[in-house]
């Protein structure tokens, strides 16, 4: 067994509550209608290529990502396009989406729906990148950064390591865990495809040791692959963050404001590795993903393989319905996720979990004055001073915020979690980040 590694600065350990870790992934049938948002990735929204009344097949491209950082979007079902209109997304604001009425379940030509495992890939690196781009694969860890951009190493840089993120440090979420148990072979094949595209010789899968079965399963399979190894990690939040994972696995520190490629690393999620496998070996675009539905009073905490665009309410229904005592439904993990306004919003490529919390757990404590205990400083994984950033942002001193490196904050929420005074530290830091971001953009113009 390897020695357990972890990152050095800060971090917290919230209760893990992996309620659905023993539940196998269940494939849900397509719903009656799906709303597929045009902006499911970082970067510019995709441009629709279908119109009202068009017949579409599952896996058919319906919107094209035309700018450099953008991704294609495919229909996740077969049916008729009802309209292209604004639908409320997770924030409650209306975003453009393609709404499709489902008819049957027919798939576009060329998509191999056979479950049989295909290990060897004959494609050249360029072909792999263009296939990943065509299939609209984005980072499934939550940030939804288009994967094809990450698979191309910028000129003058060299990738040494491919780091695969199987950490799943957020409490409650088990989607990646189940995927590692059930689709281990496919993930491994996906990793070797990504290694080929990047031209790297070593891949390290980082997994926290609260998932011993996943570590064993992948270590077993990794023996058959050259250059892939599994690195068990000590349980600590936010280990799944890119910079923290690199620090934990290879001990390198990404400089402030730089990308991981600066230290020779590329990080992909296990879910992304699986999506890359499906795209390259099966020519299957990213039209479905694993979503955990969990929470203390959810009757059947489960992991579902759902089509993109399925309303969240259908998932909750499949997990035994919304518990009566629910006061907050969160999209994503409990630490970084956002509360939903409305449970009819669609699942997007970035939805990793839907969690229902009763009032006792979701209510924030009353805000009190800062007692200068400095706990937020000790837990901040970026070595920032959250109490100071928050106060500066609250007083609208945004120049000072920038000096104090507010843009390094990745909004992990450790400070908010630990604060004994219940101060909304992260909320104000987000305000500050937003304003400082605008300031920086204005300056560069």
């Amino acid at each position, binding site marked *: 067994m390897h020695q357990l590694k972890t990152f050095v600065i800060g971090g917290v350990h919230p209760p893990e509550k992996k309620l659905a870790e023993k539940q196998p992934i269940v494939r849900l049938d397509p719903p009656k209608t799906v709303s597929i948002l045009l902006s499911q990735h970082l970067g510019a929204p995709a441009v629709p290529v279908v119109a009202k009344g068009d017949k579409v097949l599952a896996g058919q491209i319906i919107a094209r990502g035309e700018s450099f950082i953008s991704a294609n979007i495919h229909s996740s079902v077969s049916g008729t396009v009802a309209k292209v209109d*604004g639908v*409320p997304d997770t*924030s*409650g*604001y*209306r975003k453009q989406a393609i709404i499709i009425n489902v008819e049957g379940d027919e798939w576009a030509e060329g998509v191999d729906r056979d479950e049989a495992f295909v290990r060897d890939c004959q494609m050249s690196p360029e072909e792999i990148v263009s296939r990943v781009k065509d299939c609209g694969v984005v980072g499934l860890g939550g940030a939804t950064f288009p994967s094809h951009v990450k698979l191309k190493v910028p000129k003058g840089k060299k990738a040494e390591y491919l780091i695969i993120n199987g950490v799943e440090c957020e409490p409650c979420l088990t989607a990646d865990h189940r995927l590692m148990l059930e689709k281990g072979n496919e993930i491994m094949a996906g990793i070797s495809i990504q290694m080929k595209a990047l031209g790297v010789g070593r891949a390290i899968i980082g997994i926290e040791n609260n998932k011993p079965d996943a570590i064993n399963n992948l270590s077993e399979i990794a023996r058959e692959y050259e250059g892939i190894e599994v690195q068990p990690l000590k349980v600590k939040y936010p280990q799944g963050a890119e910079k923290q994972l690199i620090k934990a696995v290879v001990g390198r520190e990404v400089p402030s404001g730089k990308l991981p490629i600066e230290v020779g690393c590329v990080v992909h999620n296990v879910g992304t590795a699986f999506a890359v496998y499906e795209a390259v070996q099966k020519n299957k675009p990213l039209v479905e993903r694993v979503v955990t539905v969990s929470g203390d009073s959810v009757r059947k905490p489960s992991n579902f393989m759902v089509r993109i665009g399925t309303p969240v309410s259908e998932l909750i229904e499949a997990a035994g319905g919304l518990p009566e005592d629910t006061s907050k439904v969160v999209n994503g993990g409990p630490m970084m996720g*956002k*509360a939903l*306004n*409305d449970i009819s919003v669609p699942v997007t490529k970035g939805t990793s979990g839907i969690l229902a919390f009763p009032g006792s757990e979701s*209510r*924030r404590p009353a805000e009190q004055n800062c007692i200068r205990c400095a706990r937020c400083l000790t837990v901040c994984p970026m070595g920032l001073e959250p109490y100071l950033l928050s106060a500066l942002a*609250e007083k609208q001193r945004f120049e000072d915020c920038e000096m104090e490196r507010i843009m390094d904050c990745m909004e992990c929420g450790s400070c908010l979690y630990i604060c004994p005074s219940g101060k*909304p530290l992260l*909320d*104000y830091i*987000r*305000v500050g980040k*937003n*304003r400082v971001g605008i300031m920086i953009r204005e300056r560069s113009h």
Partner: protein
Amino acid sequence: MNELFNEITLFSVVSLGAIGGVAAIILFMVAQKFRVIEDPRIDIVEGLLPGANCGGCGLAGCRALAEAIVKDESLEGFNCPPGGSDVMQQIAEAMGWEAGEQTPMVAVLRCNGTREFAPPKVQYDSAMTCTFAHSLFSGEGGCPFGCLGCGDCVRACDFDAMYMDPESGLPVILDEKCVACGACVKACPRDIIEMRKKGKKNRRIFVSCINREKGGVARKNCKVACIGCGRCVKECRFEAITMENNLAYIDYNKCTLCRKCAPVCPTNAIHELNFPVRKKKPADTDKQEKNV
């Protein structure tokens, strides 16, 4: 003993006097050399300004406005919203210039999404600042254009002219205290507050909604939203009302305050303030009560 004391006293007085004299000469010379020549009129003008440093004129406080006025030697293009015409008149008199007439303005809240009309669907429990709430979600009532009720505008007001109504969840603007400095307009992340002409006898008519969604969608979240039906546009004989993106807007420069548009609005989105009660009561009665 006494002699000694006298000697010390004499020595101290003489030496300190000498030091003082030398210092005075140095200070006098330095003051002559580094003297800042400032127009004395700046102080006069600043004395006439209200001294609130609200920034409503667009400059950094009253001193900056006074300097700008004196530098330009005219009042053209300058405006002190809190002082209004009176102050400008006084400055003009003091300087011996002509003063132009100023239109008194006042802030109006273009949202009537109270708890009653736009019932909250969710409860917001994060930081009480509109800027953050706006970036986080569409609002407790669900309207992505409506007031968030966290009170950024109230905090921005230096004149105590606004307060938060705990019952409705909306800010209330006190006409008599509002000086139209525009601080609340800048503070609102959703541009709900607008500066409008105060109007004759404080009478104003405006569309109290800025929702640009389609009628049905807007109506779903709020009972008093402008649904863009266009009936007010047809009713208005002075072409003061324009319809853009499913939203009516009344141009206060063209509006003659005839009040014809308000009764035809099917959702009571058009507000009339400070008018006498209508003689013949139309079907929709509660117009006067709704005034915010």
